[in-house]
């Protein structure tokens, strides 16, 4: 039974170690100010920015944590932390959480702060309440169709057609030649429907887009149904396989990288991987639905928020961090590591060459769209993803999908 005594001793030793380990973190040793930052992007890509900032501000330490997974996981962890009164000193709002964060008074009013200089005012509109700005979004994202030039050439095309009929025709040709024509990840909101909807609204002169639906003046059923019917041809005409429902983003990318897939919905975040695979690819906007025009998906990146709970040196440190993020150096690093496109006047993004065309013709001219739910973003996001999966599977019709969305929206 000697082993038991040893075990008890080891246990005691470990308990001590545990207490020490627990106390190690957090306490600001050597006069450093520590601020907590709950990052939207994963830690690996964010680290270079943090390191550069800490180098420039040796008296500040940023304790970074990141959500693992997707937007829902971020919202979930953020909610728990806020509910436990552990609001991170700097964090991000998203379409999903913005109303809860702003209405709950967890974000600091940063309207007149000096670090907001150069921020594109349209990027702030989503994160403004009663004329006060609560989030800083110095960068934007853009997504379109990434296509394999070689496979398109084989089918006799040099670029992606810009009308829906032509696009579907090419898709059928590609499918006949034995490759998968197009795929997008349906476990998240459809990456193509939103932009195509935006293109339709733009052409029809419906400037406010979905707002009429959100305000209850019309319904998803009336506005969306014919558009969903058009979109659904993607599946019914065999351009996108039904099986896309059981596939994740990485698998789609892998099929593309191995020449089995001709086009997929993607964006700058995948360029590094595609380059390393040695694929000759291009980026195109989503084609125009009948009555619409070509559009891309996009919008401001999830903005940085300073907690309303901090003051003094912590607040100063957080402000310094945000001004670093919105500086030439910070934006350059964001572009290099995360492919985020600067919309701030402080840095003119060198857009990756593959994206240049889309950038000048669409992003710069405001021809991008995304459905930004004014409330209940997570619920609606989840519902729309599920409804789209059922639509692709043929278990729901375009009309019933729109009706279900109306029902869900009313319950919000």
């Amino acid at each position, binding site marked *: *039974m000697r082993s*038991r*005594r040893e075990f*008890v001793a080891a246990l005691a030793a470990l308990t001590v170690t545990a207490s020490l380990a627990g106390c190690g973190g957090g306490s600001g040793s050597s006069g450093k100010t520590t601020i907590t930052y709950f990052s939207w992007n994963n830690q690996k890509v964010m680290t270079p920015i943090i390191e550069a900032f800490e180098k420039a501000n040796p008296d500040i330490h940023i304790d970074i944590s990141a959500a693992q997974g997707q937007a*829902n*996981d971020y*919202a*979930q962890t953020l*909610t*728990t932390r*806020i*509910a436990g009164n552990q609001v991170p000193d700097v964090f991000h709002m998203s379409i*999903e*959480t913005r109303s*809860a*964060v702003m*209405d*709950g008074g*967890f974000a600091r009013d940063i309207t007149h702060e000096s670090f907001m200089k150069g921020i594109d005012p349209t990027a702030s509109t989503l994160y403004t309440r009663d004329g006060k700005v609560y989030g800083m979004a110095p960068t934007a994202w853009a997504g379109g169709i990434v296509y394999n030039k070689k496979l398109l050439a084989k089918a006799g095309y040099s670029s992606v057609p810009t009308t829906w009929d032509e696009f579907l025709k090419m898709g059928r040709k590609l499918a006949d030649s034995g490759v*998968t024509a197009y795929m997008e990840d*349906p*476990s998240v909101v459809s990456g193509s429907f939103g932009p195509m909807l935006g293109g339709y609204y733009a052409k029809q002169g419906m400037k406010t887009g979905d707002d009429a639906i959100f305000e209850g003046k019309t319904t998803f059923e009336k506005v969306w149904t014919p558009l969903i019917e058009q979109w659904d041809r993607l599946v019914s005409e065999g351009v996108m*396989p*039904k*099986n*896309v*429902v*059981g*596939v*994740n983003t990485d*698998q789609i990318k892998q*099929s593309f990288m*191995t020449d*089995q897939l001709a086009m997929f919905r993607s964006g700058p975040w995948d360029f590094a991987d595609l380059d390393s695979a040695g694929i000759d690819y291009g980026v195109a906007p989503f084609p125009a639905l009948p009555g619409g025009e070509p559009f891309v998906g996009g919008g401001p990146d999830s903005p940085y928020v300073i907690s309303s709970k901090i003051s003094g040196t912590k607040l100063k440190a957080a402000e310094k961090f945000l001004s670093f993020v919105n500086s030439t150096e910070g934006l350059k690093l964001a572009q290099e590591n995360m492919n985020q496109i600067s919309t701030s006047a402080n840095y003119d993004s060198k857009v990756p060459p593959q994206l240049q065309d889309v950038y000048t013709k669409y992003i710069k001219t405001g021809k991008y769209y995304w459905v930004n739910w004014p409330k*209940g973003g*997570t*619920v609606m996001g*989840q519902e729309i*993803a*599920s*409804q789209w*999966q*059922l639509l692709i*599977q043929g*278990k729901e019709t375009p009309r019933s999908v729109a009706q279900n969305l109306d029902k869900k929206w009313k*319950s919000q």
Partner: protein
Amino acid sequence: MTKVDVPPSTDAVQAVARTGARRPGRRAAGRNWAPTAFLLPIAAVFVVLYAVPLAETIYYSFTDFNGFSTDVNLVGLANYRTIFTDPSLLTGLGFTLAFALATTLLITMLAIPLAVVLNKKFFGRSLVRSIFFFVGVPSQVILGLVWQYIFSPLNSGALNSVLAKFGMDPVSWLADPQIARGCVVFVAVWAGVGWHAMLYLAYLQAIPADLYEQSQVDGASGRQQFFHITLPQLVPAVVVSSFLLITGGLRVYELPFAMTKGGPGYATNTITQSIILRGLAQSDYGVGSALAVLFTVACLAVILVQLRLAGIVSKRFA
């Protein structure tokens, strides 16, 4: 009989010295408080980690608390009404129950014969045992992600490429609601069967050999031995194993989420996922709490039924 040759540890000696256990009068007193003293730590665990949080959850289930706001209002039974009218939540309940029952039955039916085989001597036995056990060891999150690759519905998916080699058509796997449900159950069985076989194996080895020898003399076949000796002797193990399986199955969270994110549609959505999703990600903590309360009651009912059944079976065989 097990030998008890434990040298007194200092703690124990001190405990004995303090309580003065050698004096009969004090000993009687000691016996009265002793059960309470031994139950104190678990009572503390229960109050702090279960009772108080559950009470809070019950309270929130009657409010419109969203996780953020400090402005909390009582809303009566509204949250409970929401649950009973939301098809996605009801589908979740159905899948959770089906998952728990299916995994319990399948694992039990497979683990017992597996244990019997693993109890026989054959070349490579310890390797086989280790692998069967070890496939279930990695975190379910990781296993789920790996299986998602294997069950990819694409023609290039791991399993579909194998099927293609045998000239078979690709299967939709995770893209089809019914097959996706089956896949999730399959992976859970795959991961769990080795562990439970190990549990049965331990009990198998404890069956007295003379029982088999006796029946051998009586001319019983292998099959008769299995049904008349092995199975009845395993009843206590079945009770433990199925209790673990059913409770674990009801509370399943990570595996379906990692494999399908609850899709296609809401096909593999579980209650625990809904609790998290509604309560936290969708800032609807009142509804999440109401769901949690209902689910706790449902679990209690299922477990009571399971225990009752186990009791009947035990009595029948013991």
